[in-house]
C-alpha cells in the first residue's frame, strides 16, 4: 500500500479524516486541561463515559453514533461534577476522587455491558468497541458527527477565548472582575467532555486520555503563548491522528488507537528534547556553553592576576603555570587567543592583551572575585 491510497482508499480516508478531526479537537482543548493541572481529568471522563454509552443503548435501543456519544457525554459530565463535589465537600483529595470515579464508573459500565450481552436479542454487537476503539468501524456518518461536535466544541472555545484564558491562568482575578467563573468552569468542562467522547469509538476509553494530554504537553514546549499553544496542539493531534491511521493500515494486526498514541508519544519525545529554549538538548547545550564560559573566564582572570603581580602585561608565563592555577587551562588559552584576549609569545608563552584587560575592567574592576560565582 502506498501513500496515495490515503486519497483513494475509502476506509483509510474515512479513518484518517475522523482521527484528524478528533485529534485536532482533543489536542486544542487538552491545552486547557494540561495548563490547569487537570491532565488526568481526561482519563476519568473517558472511563466514566462507558456506562453512559451502555445506558443510552439500553434506554433507546439505538446504536446511532449521536445517541451513544450523547449518553457518553452525559455520564462523563456527571462523573466530572462528582469529582468536583467530592473534592469541595470532603477532605478526599483530587487524585483519589478521580481514581474512584474512573474505576467505579468503568466497573458499572462493565456491569451494564455484560447485562446487555445476556439479553436474548443479542443486538449489543459493537458496543465493546468503545473499550479499545476500532477505528476500522468508522463510517462516513461517524466522521461527520465527530467533525460537527468537534466543531461545536472548538467554536465555543473560540467564542469564550478571553474568558477561558482568564479562567486558566487567574480565576481569582477573573472573579474579581465579575466574570461568572463557576459557570465558565462548567462550560469549559462540558466542552472538554465533548472533545473526549467523540474519540471513544476510534481510540477507546483507555487511551483517550493520551489524546488530551500528549498534544498539549508537546505544544507547550514550543511556545509560551496560549494562542500558539492551542493551535499547535490541535495540529499535533491531527498529525498524529492521520499518521496513526496510515501506519496502522500499512501493517496487519496493528490497532489504530495505540498507533495514534505512539505517534503522539514520538511527538512528545521530539518536543521535549528538541524544542528551542525549553528542549532538553538546548538546555544541555546552554549548560555546556555556560560551563565553558566559566572556565574561560577563570583563566582570563588568572592571566590578569599574573600581569598585575608581575607589573605589566608583557610578562609571559608558560601554559603549565596556568594549568597549575586552573586545571584544563591549556584548552581555554586557545579560546582566549581566538577572541583576542590572550597573546602567545614564542612556543608557550602566554600573556593577557589590552583587549583582555579592558574586558576584565568592563566586568567590574579588573581582578573581580565575583566572576566565578
Amino acid at each position: 500500500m502506498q501513500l496515495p491510497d490515503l486519497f483513494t482508499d475509502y476506509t483509510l480516508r474515512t479513518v484518517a479524516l475522523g482521527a484528524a478531526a478528533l485529534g485536532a479537537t482533543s489536542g486544542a482543548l487538552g491545552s486547557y486541561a494540561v495548563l490547569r493541572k487537570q491532565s488526568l481529568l481526561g482519563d476519568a471522563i473517558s472511563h466514566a463515559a462507558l456506562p453512559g454509552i451502555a445506558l443510552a443503548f439500553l434506554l433507546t435501543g439505538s446504536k446511532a453514533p449521536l445517541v451513544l456519544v450523547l449518553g457518553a457525554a452525559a455520564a462523563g459530565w456527571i462523573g466530572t461534577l462528582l469529582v468536583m463535589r467530592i473534592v469541595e465537600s470532603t477532605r478526599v483529595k483530587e487524585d483519589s476522587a478521580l481514581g474512584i470515579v474512573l474505576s467505579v464508573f468503568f466497573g458499572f459500565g462493565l456491569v451494564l455491558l455484560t447485562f446487555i450481552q445476556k439479553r436474548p436479542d443479542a443486538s449489543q454487537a459493537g458496543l465493546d468497541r468503545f473499550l479499545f476503539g476500532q477505528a476500522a468501524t468508522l463510517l462516513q456518518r461517524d466522521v461527520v458527527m465527530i467533525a460537527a461536535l468537534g466543531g461545536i466544541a472548538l467554536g465555543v472555545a473560540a467564542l469564550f477565548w478571553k474568558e477561558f484564558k482568564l479562567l486558566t491562568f487567574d480565576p481569582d482575578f477573573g472573579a474579581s472582575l465579575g466574570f461568572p467563573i463557576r459557570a465558565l468552569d462548567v462550560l469549559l468542562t462540558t466542552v472538554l467532555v465533548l472533545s473526549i467522547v467523540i474519540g471513544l469509538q476510534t481510540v477507546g476509553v483507555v487511551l483517550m486520555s493520551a489524546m488530551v494530554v500528549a498534544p498539549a504537553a508537546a505544544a507547550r514546549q514550543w511556545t509560551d503563548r496560549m494562542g500558539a499553544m492551542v493551535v499547535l496542539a490541535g495540529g499535533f493531534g491531527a498529525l498524529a491522528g492521520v499518521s496513526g491511521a496510515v501506519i496502522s493500515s500499512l501493517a496487519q494486526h496493528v490497532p489504530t488507537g495505540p498507533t495514534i498514541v505512539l505517534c503522539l508519544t514520538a511527538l512528545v519525545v521530539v518536543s521535549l528534547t528538541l524544542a528551542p529554549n525549553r528542549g532538553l538538548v538546548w538546555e544541555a547545550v546552554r549548560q555546556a556553553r555556560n560551563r565553558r564560559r566559566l572556565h574561560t573566564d577563570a583563566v582570563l582572570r588568572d592571566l590578569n592576576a599574573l600581569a598585575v603581580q608581575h607589573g605589566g602585561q608583557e610578562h609571559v608565563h608558560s601554559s603549565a603555570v596556568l594549568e597549575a592555577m586552573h586545571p584544563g587551562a591549556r584548552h581555554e588559552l586557545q579560546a582566549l587567543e581566538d577572541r583576542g584576549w590572550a597573546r602567545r609569545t614564542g612556543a608557550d608563552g602566554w600573556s593577557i592583551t589590552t583587549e583582555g584587560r579592558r574586558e576584565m575592567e568592563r566586568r567590574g574592576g579588573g581582578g573581580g572575585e565575583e566572576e566565578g560565582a
Partner: protein
Amino acid sequence: MVPEQEIQWIAAVTAAACALPGVFLVLRRMSLMSDAISHAILLGIVLAFFVTENIASPLLVAAAAATGVLTVSLVEVLNRTRLVREDAAIGLVFPALFSVGVILISRYAGNVHLDVDAVLLGELAFAPFNRLVIGGRDVGPRILWLMVVVLLLNAGFILAFYKELKLTTFDAALAGALGFAPGLIHYLFMTLVSVTAVGAFDAVGSVLVVALMIAPPASAYLLTDRLPAMIGLSMGLGVVSALSGYWMSYLLDVSIAGSMATMTGVVFLLVFFFAPERGLVAIARRRARQRWAFAQTMLAIHLLNHEASPEAAEESREAHLHEHLRWEPEFARRVVRGAERTGYVTRVAGERLALTERGRVAAREAVGMGA
C-alpha cells in the same frame, strides 16, 4: 470447596491485599499511580510471555512488577525535567507503555491465550479453573494462593516499616532530615504496589485494581483520623464491597469485576453522605444547628442591648425583629420559639419578650462581657 466459595475467597483476599497499599497511596496523594501501574504492567506481562510462552510463569509477575517500577521512575524522570507537571507526566507515560503492549498482543499473540479484554477486565469466574497442584495434590486455585502471598507480603512490609511509612507519608521533609531515606521507602513501596497490582490484575483486571486500591481507603479516610483504624476499616470495607459485589453479579448474572467495582463506589457514596462527622448529612445538620444557635444568641444580644432603655417596649416586640434584624416573620417566630425552649427569653404581656437570667448570661458571653 465449590467454585462459588473459591471465587468469594479470591475476591475477599484480593480486596484486603489491595486495601493495604491503597491506604498509603490515598494519604500520599498518589492514587492515580495505581491506575498508571495497573495499565503499564500489561507490557511487562506481554514481554515475559513472549519469553516463557507460559501464562502461569512466575516470570510474568516479576516482569510486570518491574514494568510497574519503570513506570514510576519514568514519571519521576519526566517530572524532574520540569517541562511537564506530574499529572501530565503520568498521563503521558502509561498510555505509551500500554499502547506498546496492546500492539504487541494484537500483532504477535493473536492466537494464544492472552487477549486484551481478559487482562484489562479480568474474568474472576474462570479463576478456579487454574489450579495449584503441589506434589500431585490439588491445593486450590492458583490465584487464591498468589493473592494470599501478596496479602502477607503487604502486611509484612507495613508491619516492618510502619514507622518509616507513616513518617514519610505525613512529613517527608522531617523523615529525610532524620535520615529515613524517603526515596528508598518510596521505591520499595511502589514495588509493592506493582506486585499487588500484578496479582490482582490477574484476578480482577486492571481497572478494578484501581477501585479496590482507592475507593475503600478513601471511604475509611472519611470515617477515622487514626492510621491503624484507617488500615483496618479499609480492609473491612474492601472485603464487604468484594463480597456484596460477588452476590450482585451472581443475582444479576453480570461481570463480577464490574459488580465489585460498583459496590466499592456504593460504599463510598454511603460514607460520603452518612459518615458520622464528615458526611454531607452530618455537615448539613451541623450547619443548620449552628444557624439556629447563632440566631438565638442574636436575639438575646438584641434584647440585652435595649434592656432597661426607653425604647425597650418597642424593641422587644416580636414583630419588630423583622425591622431590626432583617428576619423574615416566619423565621423570627421560629427563633423566638426556639429561644423560649432553650430558656433564653420569656413572654411578658403577650407580644413583649424579656430576657431570662440564662439568656442574659449567654448574651453577655457572646459579646465578650461575660464573667
